[in-house]
């Protein structure tokens, strides 16, 4: 166990240059953004003097290395600065918005896996059959549509026309109250509070955006499941298991599927971090108060602190996610010693 802990620390140390790179690049990228935030934030009727005043207030009058130094110093104290568009400390804002994005992404991936993995397994057990082709066409169609388009179309049909879905107003209809915050995940918090109504209300809000995202993520998961299952099913040990008389069920799930899980987990990790970043569009359509929409607004407004904070937060998530995948890997596959990577 001690060895594992050391390995985790080593991995984290390895991620350090990545984080540093992200900090530097995001700093440079934000400074390269067009526009003068001082002019933007000085307000509508500001004159040159008040813009200058704003500039000094924002610290934008200093030289670039100086600004970077200050930024890093702030970071070291855990201070991501204050967003100018929303007027809130970036840390607070991210802490509030991240659970929303994570909840949406996780539910979407859960739905997606719930559909894509069985589809992939189904297709792999009947390669070349019409089932296989149908699966392929279905998931490909899902990935072929831009998410914002799917989102608007779903709202139109399920909310506007039929009224089945609740109004696309973020995480909870306004008549409900947020459950007492423990994790920030409404589904979990509501469950913890034993509050079934709020739980269902939160779930109802989740359905359309999660479906939109899920539709988009079906393809990579299903593809990878199919490929991994095909290669697992054609392995020698499957033949051994068959020759030993094990049931088809045991062979499919106990033997082939567990082996196929490895590449699927990798893909899941990639899809997850990709989806979290691509949430932007879905969050915009569904008024979802996540970090994606936050980042877009910040970017358009050249809100340095917010953009940098967001990018850093995503990078940390990425690192954490990779660590998690590695751990999952070493759990699934005994051949991969955790420290051998």
């Amino acid at each position, binding site marked *: 166990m001690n060895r594992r802990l050391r390995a985790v620390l080593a991995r984290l140390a390895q991620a350090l240059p990545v984080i540093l790179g992200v900090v530097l690049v995001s700093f440079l990228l934000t400074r390269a*953004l*067009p*526009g*003068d*935030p001082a*002019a*933007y*934030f*000085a*307000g*509508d*009727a*500001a*004159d*040159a003097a*008040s*813009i200058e*005043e*704003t500039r000094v*207030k924002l610290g934008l009058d200093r030289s670039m290395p100086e600004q970077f130094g200050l930024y890093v110093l702030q970071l070291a104290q855990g201070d991501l600065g204050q967003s*100018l*568009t*929303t*007027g*809130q400390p970036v840390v607070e*804002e991210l802490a*509030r*918005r991240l659970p929303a994005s994570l909840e949406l992404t996780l539910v979407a991936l859960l739905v997606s896996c719930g559909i894509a993995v069985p589809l992939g397994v189904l297709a792999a057990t009947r390669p070349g059959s019409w089932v296989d082709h149908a699966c392929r066409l279905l998931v490909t169609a899902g990935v072929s549509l831009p998410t914002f388009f799917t989102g*608007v179309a779903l*709202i*139109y049909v399920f*909310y*506007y026309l039929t*009224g089945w879905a609740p*109004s*696309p*107003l*973020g995480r909870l209809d*306004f*008549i*409900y*109250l*947020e459950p*007492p915050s423990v994790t920030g995940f409404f589904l979990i918090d509501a469950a913890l509070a034993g*509050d079934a*109504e*709020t739980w269902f*209300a939160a779930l109802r809000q989740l359905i359309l955006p999660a479906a939109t995202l899920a539709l988009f993520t079906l393809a990579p998961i299903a593809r990878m499941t199919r490929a991994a299952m095909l290669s697992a099913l054609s392995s020698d040990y499957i033949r051994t298991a068959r020759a030993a008389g094990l049931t088809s069920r045991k062979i499919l799930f106990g033997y082939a599927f567990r082996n196929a899980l490895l590449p699927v987990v990798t893909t899941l990790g990639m899809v997850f971090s990709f989806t979290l970043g691509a949430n932007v569009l879905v969050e*915009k*359509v*569904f*008024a979802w*108060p996540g970090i994606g*929409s*936050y980042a877009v*607004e910040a970017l*358009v*407004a*050249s*809100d340095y602190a917010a953009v940098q904070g967001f990018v850093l937060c995503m990078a940390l998530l990425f690192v954490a996610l990779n660590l998690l995948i590695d751990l999952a890997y070493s759990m699934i596959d005994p051949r991969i010693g955790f420290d051998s990577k």
Partner: protein
Amino acid sequence: MGLDTSRRGFLKGGSVALGAAALPFLKFMPAQAAGDDVVVVVMGQTINSLDLHRTGTNRPSYQVAVNCYDRLVSFGTKTMPDGSLSYDYSTIVPEIAESWTVSDDGKVLTFRIKPEAVFQDGSKVTAQDVKWSFDRAVSVGGFPTTQMAAGGLLRPDQFAAVDEATFTVTLDKPSKLALPDLAVPVPFILNSKIAKQHVTDADPWAMEFVHKNTIGSGAYKVVRWDPGQQLVYERNDLWTGGPLPGAKRVVLREVPSQATRRALIERGDVQMSWNIPNKDASELDGKVEVYSTPIENAIYVVSLNYNFEPFQDPDVRKAVAYAIPYEEIFKTAAYGRGVPMWGGSGIETIDWPQPSPYVFDLDKAREHLEKSAFAGGFDVPFSIDLGQSDWMEPTALLIQEQLAKLGITSTIDKIPGANWRTASLVEKRLPLALETFGGWLNYPCYYFFWAYQEGHLFNSSNYANPEIEQLVAETLDLPVEHPDYAPKVKRMFEIAFEDLPRIPLFQPALSVAMNGATGYEYWFHRELDARKLAKG
């Protein structure tokens, strides 16, 4: 957050119909309970501060100053021809001030504060509070200070609390703008006693505290604010600034997607959709209540930059003015919402905005271009604001198409928000751009002051005309009734239409859709005034 965001607190202020004992077990508000006194409003923008004085506070946030704070005075209310309510620029009514007097030289304004006026914490509103608030407005810099300056309110020493209920403003010179400038959202009155508890050396005006808390005497208080998501107003039953609002609570939801907002209002899931696109306004009209009010003292214009060589030629500017398909633009970009600003038959009144003499006439455009030094045409970037692309993009496309027929090749450049202000207003470097400016104070001279005077912020064309400078300086503080006023203003109009740094397209309208609520009032600041809102 300093707000009372606990569930119980939120509920307590909520449905009075429900017994307090039942409250802890109530996990959501049943539709009926929520129904009667809660008005839900959706808008596309974000409220980024509860304090208008703060650096970086955006326009939508100004409404917090309107709804949660009082000023000394306010504008009156009038009923428009279509039955909707509008503020009335011509009358100033009391808000926290009971009465006021102006000294004979017009320089000293003395206000008496309503004796019954109390802040939301129950404490009395005093002249000291007003003094502290005004000092704050002129000291913090940025927009509030600039706006105060427009009314001649420049320094703390101009404000004095004579006694607890008497407050005076001393002007350097009399101005017709002074009193109206006290009725705009900026000089709102804070509870200085609470604010001072949060003052630090680094933060002498309690910016951090006021940023997140409302400490006014206004009609509402903010009980919940989730930046980027929603803002919840709750009625302040102690309000003395006017009749109590019908709505007990107003929930303001931020919904970025325009299509979603439309669906919500159309289905009646929200009672009000703020600032809807012209297209929705024209289509929803009849299905739900739609109010489209032409925005006073505002015009959408094509701005021709005098620093761009071809536009220094008056014939080129006129050629452009004749090449604009006004009618089509009004139809496709404004969907007929607003007031046409072309084809005017002469300057008869001092109303502003008023139609320019130009119409769409390609032959005339060609004639003018032939006469110019750029008969063969030229290339020019055509800049529009990404944030306003709903009207700017179709407009630009239609103009681009016609300009092309003259040989003027334009490429459309969408500029994101942060850069737009810098490029168009601060650096004033866009050769050809669409522009919009509306003056809060409804005087032509005020508009010209900002948009036609050299170096001023909204003069994005780098226009400089000594006569205009002279006329603006002369008329700005002159009372409208003054006999010199009208001729001078008309002369300004003449020059503006002749020199054409800004080619007027149309006067925009602010459109708001209501479905199941009443009490919309149009304001020059174009933000939500919830003080008359009621369900029904």
